[in-house]
């Protein structure tokens, strides 16, 4: 199945059927990671650069393993060990890396729009691994994949996304994706972190976690950053925890068999109590596991490799 995009910059432009293609492709890759020999030759000879300007545990390792399990060669770029610290501009950095003829660049950057920016002057395929508060498309794809795995569908589910919506690229990509797939989305958080304009995207907003969680199929918790409190987005972590932490008591209001998701990293005891993070309802580590298959699918669809049977 051919994919009509050269880059994966965000979920927003994708159609539901294109999302289905990625998810179905991921399904076929899932099994590879459970083999004794976790490798297929699909992208042999392809070179990929992992260009991460922000710290990352999950996404960077996940892309690296996804590339390696498809036999691509991958180079990790470390911002602190790069010439960026000598004052080299982003454009010059990327142009120099491009001169080494990679096939794809996976980029994570703290500024929104950077993947768009570099796609204007790069030959390589650009994959957005998170840009500022804009999008994190592969996270939304792996979330959708996990929801489908658990719930067998997305359409009609009630998904509650809780936390710092304003600054969350995970929330945006999930809003775009889950909405395209027919889920009902309720955003929850303190008003300064949950602007009313999000209603324009067709979602509901609710400042009260207790009412929002009623009947939820999926409860997606977002990491709350400590520095938000310094900017007075809310008065204190203590107050945030009282109002917006997912506790056992609150979770009882959700639907029976509801699942708990979190893109990581978790602030244990802040947005998520430890017993909830480790409960049977939590699919947090499944999200991580599925992330590899989803990223293999994205790399495969963008970089081609059509001649190889992918489920060999």
């Amino acid at each position, binding site marked *: 199945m051919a994919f009509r995009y050269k880059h994966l910059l965000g979920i927003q432009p994708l159609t539901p059927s294109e999302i289905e293609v990625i998810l179905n492709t991921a399904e076929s890759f899932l099994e590879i990671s459970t083999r004794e020999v976790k490798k297929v030759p699909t992208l042999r000879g392809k070179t990929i650069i992992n260009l991460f300007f922000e710290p990352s545990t999950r996404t960077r390792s996940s892309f690296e393993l996804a590339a390696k399990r498809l036999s691509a060669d991958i180079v990790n770029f470390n911002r602190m060990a790069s010439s960026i610290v000598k004052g080299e501009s982003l454009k010059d950095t990327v142009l120099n890396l491009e001169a080494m003829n990679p096939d794809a660049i996976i980029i994570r950057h703290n500024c929104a*729009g950077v993947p768009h*920016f570099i796609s204007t002057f790069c030959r390589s395929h650009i994959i957005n691994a998170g840009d500022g508060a804009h999008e994190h498309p592969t996270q939304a794809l792996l979330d959708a994949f996990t929801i489908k795995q658990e719930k067998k569908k997305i359409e009609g589910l009630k998904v509650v996304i809780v936390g710092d919506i304003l600054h969350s690229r995970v929330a945006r990509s999930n809003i775009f994706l889950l909405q395209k797939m027919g889920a009902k989305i309720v955003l929850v958080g303190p008003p300064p972190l949950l602007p009313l304009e999000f209603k324009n995207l067709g979602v509901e907003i609710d400042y009260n976690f207790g009412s929002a969680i009623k009947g939820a199929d999926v409860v997606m918790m977002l990491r709350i950053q400590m520095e938000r409190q310094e900017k007075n987005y809310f008065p204190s972590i203590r107050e945030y925890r009282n109002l917006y932490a997912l506790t056992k008591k609150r979770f009882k209001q959700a639907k029976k068999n509801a699942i708990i998701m979190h893109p990581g990293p978790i602030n244990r005891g802040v947005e998520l109590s430890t017993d909830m993070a480790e409960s049977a309802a939590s699919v947090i580590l499944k999200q991580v596991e599925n992330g590899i298959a989803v990223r293999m699918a994205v790399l495969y669809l963008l970089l081609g490799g059509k001649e190889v049977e992918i489920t060999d």
Partner: protein
Amino acid sequence: MRLLIKNGRVIDPASGIDDTLDILIDKGKIEDIKAKINVNKAKVIDASRLVIAPGFIDMHTHLREPGQEYKETIKTGSLAAAKGGFTSILCMPNTEPVNDNRGVTEYILSEARKEAAVNIFPVASISKGQRGEELTDIADLVDAGTVAFSDDGQPVQNSQLMRRALEYSKLLNTLIIDHCEDKNLSEGGVMNEGHFSYLLGLKGIPASSEEIIVARDIILAEKADARLHLAHLSVKGSLNLVREAKKKKIKVTAEATPHHLFLEDSRLQTYDPNLKVNPPLRSREDVHALIKAVKEGVVDVFATDHAPHTPDEKDVEFDEAPFGINGLETGVSLILDKLVNKNIITLKKFIEMISTTPAIILGLENKGKICVGADADLTILNLYQEIVVDITKFKSKSRNNPFHNWKLKGAPSMTIVGGKIVYPF
């Protein structure tokens, strides 16, 4: 050599003239205007099918000299102005060093005398170093040749200081110009706060950051009975405040830029740093309100806020790019095409807003009008000329203009400053 401009359609809002007339220029002044002038020994310009207007005045530019000559100089900025149809421009004080003392003002004026193609009028800062703490020596600066005062992009946050500046300005009958922005509300913002900033994940600059300072300034100007000019208004709420202030006869005037009139924040979806400007491009509703305010006279003047930055500075992450649009060479054509040709405002109203009224606001007695004895600053327009904006042909040193490749009808065809033809070059 005398200059005789024949057969042009002369439009002078100050006197109400709109007629085909000849204009004779001698020693930098207009010597005669009448239906047929015949003289020996004069360079004759045939202005048939052209419009002759009093020279255009841009109340808001950044010439970057001294200190940032790699972006623009007084010379290149003035050439851009001449090409854009402007005969006089005001230059904002955010140079390095800041124009906050006689030395810098005199430097600018002396460079202008040597290098500039058009008249340069320096604006000095309200506060020393634009730091918002102590007033500059306003009388000394006026004596040196400053025509107005503004802290521009670092606007005065301290209301007491703004009050004092407005009060003191009356002593010199000078003008306080404010870039209205509450820096606490706009902190870290890079685009208009609203649907598109949330969609794009870019930090927003709320309308309230402008509205609050507009309201404050109007209140202070009313109490001080001082004149106040509000730069580049961008949101509906500000315009409503100015509308009310004018009803109450408060001495407030306001300007609008072409980019705020013709570009909406939805364009930021390309993340093009050439669209990054402060105040930011606003919502469709704000753009409509701004056009309405121009029609109703709530906005008094057009100004470009010409803010040159080099490609190296702009070709970066959106968050990191400097604010500003290079506007001197596209402003007139944009307004002719988008407002005059579409009958949203008349040609006379346009000339009034870009020449007559700025001259009155600034107290430039011999400018902004076509009459015997006035300065021979004239802008000649060809309303039929179709142009395609080409930033590579700019006279400005910089290229940061988002209208590249726009097709526009109507353009300056000649610019005359003090009786000298400064454009075409």
